[in-house]
């Protein structure tokens, strides 16, 4: 029987007190769509690329998208300034960082049920209280269809 630990892929992680710019760097350079945020090995949440993007964008652009058009290309630099002085933990709230977690010995059906119930594209896998990786919905589907 395939267990969650067998399918769990390692994901980059950062501690809650890491600079927010470091989380952004990991997302950009390692070409992953999420970064796990942990404290003393315990998962606190995830920061996704979309979550980070919404954090970078000023709220006035979200309130009035027409304002994005009046800003020149160079204004992109301003977006990065919004991360300066911030910590990884601060990115969690806006990113809606709560993701479901399963134990390493959970079956794939259990993983699927948790994922569908939470409508989350990613499930974190922990073993002995420590985070060992994550399972994406596409990896799970591929494995289930192979079975």
């Amino acid at each position, binding site marked *: 029987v395939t267990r969650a630990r067998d399918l769990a892929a390692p994901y980059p992680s950062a501690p809650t007190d890491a600079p927010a710019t470091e989380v952004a760097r990991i997302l950009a350079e390692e070409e992953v769509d999420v970064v796990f945020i942990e404290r003393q090995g315990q998962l606190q949440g995830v920061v996704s690329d979309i979550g980070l993007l919404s954090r970078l964008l*000023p*709220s*006035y652009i979200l*309130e*009035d998208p*027409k*304002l994005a*058009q*009046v*800003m020149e290309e160079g204004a992109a630099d301003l977006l990065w300034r919004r991360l300066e002085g911030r910590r990884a933990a601060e990115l969690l709230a806006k990113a809606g960082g709560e993701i479901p977690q399963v134990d390493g010995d959970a079956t794939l059906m259990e993983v699927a049920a948790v994922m569908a119930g939470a409508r989350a594209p990613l499930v974190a896998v922990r073993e002995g209280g420590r985070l060992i990786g994550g399972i994406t919905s596409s990896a799970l589907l591929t494995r289930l269809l192979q079975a």
Partner: protein
Amino acid sequence: MSTAFAVTVFAVAYALIASEKVNRVTVALAGAGLMLAFRLVSSEDAFHSTDFGIDWDVIFLLLGMMIVVGVMKQTGLFEYLAIWSAKKAQGQPYRIMVALVVLTAFASALLDNVTTVLLVAPVTILICERLELPPAPYLIALALASNIGGTATLIGDPPNIIIASQADLTYLDFLSNLAPLVVLLLAVFIAMCRLLFRSAFRYRPERVRELMTLDEREAIVDRRLLAQSLAVGVAATAGFALHGLLHYDPSVVALLGAGVLLLLANRPPLVFLREVEWPTLAFFMGLFIMVGALVKVGVIQSLANAAADLTGGRLLLATTLLLWVSGLLSAVIDNIPYVATMAPVTASLVQDLGGDQDATVLWWSLALGADLGGNATAIGASANVVILGLSERAGHPISFLQFTKYGALVALATLVLSMPYLWLRYFVLG
């Protein structure tokens, strides 16, 4: 028995609306349902009588204007004007605040206050961020300006729409009686801004280039739609103003404007109908039925008699009391239910106190008190609440006390100035 029941339902509903513990639409519709279920008001009265039921003129005027505003919002006109004026002000903070205040007050006289602040606030935060200015004082000034500006016209603030319909007052009546005072109040408010927000005017010449790089022309996303909405806006304003000649009620003019604009825009109407605040319209309907029941059982007439006794038939005393009581109550409760309740009371007072003289001044007193009093606290007007929400989402939260500290002073100053205006214009010169 029926009177006691009607008063109880109304009082409980009012308390729930004021406490904001239950959604105000739920309360208004449940209250209206109870009034109908216990036959305090008949369905014939509720749906077909303007004295005891829904004032459809108000509902359709609001609906028409919401659609027109829904189209105008898409054009980018306000974003253009805000950035253009900030650039013209050369990044000088006080001049920018004045430009934004004037733009907001003017727009609020033509559109509803909430829409106006929703249009101007995001671009204000952008301008402040570019100039490294604290957005909170500018946002507070916008909310206060929108409540002052909205007082000037029939369509500027929902209480004015209710008053116009109840008192049969025209757009020009509002313009000629309230707009001159509003211009004066705005000038005073602009002067007050210099003092109240003096710490927010730190000029940073090195940041001005950041402002100048904004291209306001890019905000205009659809020039054809802009031209069409401006044309319809001008035509609708002319229609409101020419009521004496054309004899079209404001609701008819607004609906015509909305219909023409939807036809011209040539887009699926749902795009614009999404902007209609259906909950607000439902709130108004429930409220009208509840107040209609109070009129029907005679409570409103008793209130009016008590008010007439209290003032002893002295019009100046009644005018003063109405202004200050309305101002104080509107500071803490929603001014829409307040005016919906007070409009029939005022109608009765105008009849009772008028005698030989024209007691229309009472309507202006009610409008000024209700509209300007809303500035006093952070929850006194919908525009204030919207600004608080926007500023929090932008990461520049404004506390209740912070807003109220400025709002109370501005409300007090504007109400104090309204008194000599009313006295001079309607008692000395009138």
